[in-house]
């Protein structure tokens, strides 16, 4: 079933541990590290809701059937503050979501990286070292 959905299993880097992070909920409880997933589809709906944003995408399988997936993002407040609104990602836009599938087997995943098909990141910036310094 999974192969029919044009779901590609991503290869994962190894070795480096990271410091534990706090976030609103336990990601490892909800999403399965053993099920990395890469979804290519078109935006059907953007839910800028609290506490997390969700992007709904239609993914066409090899059999031509379209299945809707939900991809989780972070707090909508960060998006709004950075000028990203509900219309910034129009319905029909083709995107690739690279993340991990929900443990409950539903068609949900976290959007670890969300890019356009040409590789450009949709969400850029934040507090990365390349970001402009704060005031």
């Amino acid at each position, binding site marked *: 079933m999974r192969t029919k959905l044009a779901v590609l299993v991503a290869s994962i880097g190894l070795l480096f541990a990271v410091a534990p992070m706090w976030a609103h909920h336990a990601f490892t409880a909800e999403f399965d*590290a053993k099920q990395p997933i890469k979804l290519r589809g078109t935006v059907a709906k953007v839910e800028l809701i609290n506490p997390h944003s969700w992007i709904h995408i239609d993914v066409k399988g090899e059999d031509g059937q379209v299945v809707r997936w939900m991809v989780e993002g972070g707090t909508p407040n960060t998006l709004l503050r950075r000028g990203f609104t509900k219309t910034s990602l129009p319905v029909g836009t083709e995107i690739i979501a690279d993340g991990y599938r*929900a443990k409950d087997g*539903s068609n949900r995943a976290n959007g670890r990286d969300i890019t356009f098909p040409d590789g450009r990141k949709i969400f850029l910036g934040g507090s990365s070292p390349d970001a402009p310094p704060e005031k």
Partner: protein
Amino acid sequence: MRHRFLASMCCLVAAIAMVWLAPGSAVGQARGSLEVASAAKTAPHLRTPDGQPDLQGLWSFATITPLERPDELAGKEFFTEKEAVDYETGVLKRNNMDRRDGSAEADVTRAYNDFWWDRGTRVVKTRRTSLVIDPPDGRVPALTTEAQTRQDDRAAKNRGHEFDGPENRPLPERCLVLQGSGPPMLPTAYNNNTRIVQAPGYVMILVEMGHEVRVIPLDGRPHLPQGVRQWKGDSRGHWEGDTLIVETTNFTDKTAFRGASENMRLIERFRRADADTLLYQFTVDDPSAFTKPWTAEVPVTITPGPLFEYACHEGNYGMRGALAGAREEEKRAAPKAQTETK
């Protein structure tokens, strides 16, 4: 009682309606030179029309300075300018969520790329190496035996039941008390903004994380009766010179800030240090939980905003997802367990 409340709220709303603007001149002070003494006078242009120090505005708690001083910085209270830059670079590299290295578990924990995270990029402008300023080692004092036992008992009771139901999940996941929202308020990974509004007889503090509001009376009224316990306690304020002092008591035993008991007495101090900076300090006094009182300081910075609502329950699919994930894992484990017992 109800009338008094309504009258109070009317005063507050009226005051909000005629919010006086914070003066625009931005005379920043050099890093590391903020004057902490409460005797310091707030400049005349940073006062409200009725003469109070003007604490109003939208303030950001975002900083990468840790609450407690890391072991490798033991004995070092302040960074030099260069050390601060080196530290910032190191932390940002370590925290960079765009990286995809490490184990799959680590990658899941990072959750999303850096765009979504907003914890700030700088250490506090005093260049302290920890937010804790007392005790001088920059560490939260040890828990008392009583508090440690209480914490261990609570953890033991929940062990093996972490995903039984929503009641077993941590308070932030349940949208009850969000990380950093306080009191006391602390920097966290995003939604670090706080709005302060002053009205005659009141100060209002709205925290973006969880959009939680405290309306703090300044008229000297007593705290709520001991039997009334609240997630965010019961706050009362007064001015000492140009510093706003807020005392909060009447916490629930569920809030348990870093192992504190329901009898935690929290003292917060707010002082307008300069046009861009509000010096926020808090002291945790809870002899039944901590071996001594401790104090932390966050120089918070003015931020343009806006501040958005964070209605955590609006679409808390995460709770359902985590519990559903646990049910699925139980189902998968069940046949295996049966085989093992045969």
